[in-house]
């Protein structure tokens, strides 16, 4: 009965909003606890994230990463799979992007290289997701545990490769050589300069368009194709999917590979766009933030874009905040992220009964007034 009593806009719009508000209120208490003013913190975060063009650039740059990982987590969620491995898949995907760029950047300009880089990244990311997926589908081991393990394996593998194989000869830092200027993605600054508008330099690059294209593609895939229908059906009821003739094992593997491929696009934004080389830990937690984004965005591309923007703003604003007030470290953003996962993910059902009661009371009043 619980679903029928609430109209869709309350379920999809109001409840998540209430949960996010709860998360922010608790975050406010944390800031109070360390003896700072939450309102001032909010002010710094907002001006830091949206107050000037460089800040906006950084915000949108982070947003791009979170859209990719958020979409990756959400597509797995739709099939009832919990992909915690976005971090590792993005890391290995970035390796694919980097290797392709390093081998072809002498010959190709960025626009010709981009499709190859996307393909290589997606293949590497998908391959990293394939093993846990295969083990889940065919050997019965749980994808949550195996993807956690694969995050650590990816991290060890990348350290090994960067320290021993990819390191630039003569360099001390464990990172690859820089890509050729012509092979890196044009930054937003270049793009705006081409049409005569001057904006500040930031790592924001054309990857953000790729992110938005991915949103549309994921939406089309999930709600307008046969594969998407199968994915969602497995998520709703795996037994029903089996009885309707869907090869659930195959779909589980395919879904996880798509998920890994989407995570890998972080590599396009970071390796080919911003850093212009492969370096240690370039994913920097984006894979985990993707989980918060997917939960908050209710696994819908539009929700994911909004949630990514929020987390992008928090990340940039948080950095600005700790710069303005060193007593508030930017780890406060990690706290907020944890609280959003807690309230939007684990405690979603907490406020539902109460909200239902209040809503029913309100509507009943209206109805009796109408009578």
């Amino acid at each position: 009965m619980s679903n029928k009593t609430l109209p869709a806009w309350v379920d999809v719009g109001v409840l998540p909003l209430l949960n996010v508000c709860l998360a922010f209120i608790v975050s406010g208490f944390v800031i109070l606890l360390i003896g700072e003013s939450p309102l001032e913190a909010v002010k710094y975060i907002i001006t830091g994230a949206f107050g000037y063009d460089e800040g906006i650039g950084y915000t949108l740059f982070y947003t791009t990463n979170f859209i990719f990982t958020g979409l990756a987590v959400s597509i797995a969620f739709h099939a009832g799979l919990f992909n915690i491995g976005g971090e590792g898949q993005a890391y290995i995907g970035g390796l694919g992007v980097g290797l392709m760029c390093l081998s072809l950047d002498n010959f190709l300009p960025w626009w010709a290289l981009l499709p190859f880089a996307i393909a290589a990244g997606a293949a590497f990311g998908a391959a990293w997701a394939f093993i846990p997926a295969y083990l889940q589908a065919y050997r019965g081991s749980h994808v949550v545990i195996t993807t956690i393990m694969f995050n650590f394996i990816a991290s060890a593998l990348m350290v090994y490769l960067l320290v021993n194989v990819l390191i630039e000869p003569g360099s001390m830092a464990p990172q690859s050589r820089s890509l050729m200027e012509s092979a890196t993605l044009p930054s937003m600054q270049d793009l705006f300069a081409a049409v005569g508008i001057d904006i500040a330099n930031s790592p924001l690059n054309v990857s953000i368009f790729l992110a938005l294209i991915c949103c549309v593609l994921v939406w089309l895939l999930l709600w307008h194709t046969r594969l998407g229908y199968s994915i969602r059906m497995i998520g709703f009821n795996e037994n029903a999917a089996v009885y309707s003739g869907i090869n659930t094992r195959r779909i589980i593997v395919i879904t996880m590979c798509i998920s890994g491929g989407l995570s890998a696009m972080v590599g396009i934004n970071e390796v080919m766009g911003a850093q212009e080389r492969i370096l240690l830990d370039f994913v920097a937690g984006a894979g985990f933030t993707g989980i918060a984004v997917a939960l908050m965005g209710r696994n819908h591309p539009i929700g994911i874009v909004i949630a990514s923007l929020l987390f992008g703003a928090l990340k940039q604003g948080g950095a600005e905040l700790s710069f303005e007030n060193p007593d508030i470290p930017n780890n406060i953003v990690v706290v907020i992220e944890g609280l959003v996962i807690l309230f939007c993910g684990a405690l979603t059902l907490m406020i539902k009964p109460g909200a239902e009661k209040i809503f029913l009371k309100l509507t009943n009043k209206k109805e009796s007034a109408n009578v």
Partner: protein
Amino acid sequence: MSDFILILLSTLDSTIRVSTPLILCAMAGLFSERSGIVDIGLEGKMLGGAFAAAAIASITGSAWIGLSAAIGVSVCMALLHGFACITHKGNQVVSGLAINILASGLTVTLGIAWFHQGGQTPLLSGDARFYSIDLPGALALADVPVIGAIYSQLISGHNALVYLAFITVPITWWIVYQTRFGLRLRAVGENPQAVDTAGISVFWLRYRAVICAGILCGIAGAYLSTGQNASFVREMSAGKGYIALAALIFGKWRPKAALLACLLFGFLEALTVRLEGVDLPLLGQVPTQLMQALPYILTVVLLAGFIGKAVAPKAIGVPYIKER
């Protein structure tokens, strides 16, 4: 030859030291998971406990008060996990992840705000730390060949929490397999309906299980920051909670096997330090990263069903809904 024995002994000695938090966390996970609650929040609870122990010990100057604070904080986090996934039937993995991320953010945030040392707590000394204890007769026996060396170097000379960790294993075994509570705990992880039909509260049982997990993770945290090290350092749990989880699975959710898995993973870690830069016959240098990844790789291989089969408690991860 005696060189080899000395090296072996010191490697085994450090194995014991690095396995201690793994053992405590694996037993914590055992309580929780045998009751049907997935616990990937071991890492976060341990980290929270480590911070609480170091912070309180540095203020009060007592390691034991620090330990109680660690247990308190870790139990609170465990209760939060319980509140989310027992009372409100939330997703257990999501809740555990939230706890890990919260712990990682909160410890650094509070640490910087309170101690102004970049997330570290002040260095502990004196009574604020757990020091190694010489077991009775260790000095006297030291000169006896083999047994003396093993007793005085390997068994004696650890701090109280190490011994506590090793005692935890038989106690856990006894509670889980020999007591009424343990029987019900295992039953609730396999078939909560049956337990409910027998008139026993599934919720209360599971809450007690997560509290047990909280206590043990708290001890593990206190060991990290007041036993093994002399202060809290940001992210000092460094994936140990996940390795413990892997060890628990590797040990097929059984106390003795989980202990052996913890010792194996601890040995790998101790060996990693030992083998750095050493050329092995036939193998050459083994990359440290391979050694670090080995526990995870082994666990995946086990989960894939290539070494025996790890069967999880049947009702794990499924919230219990009474009306059904």
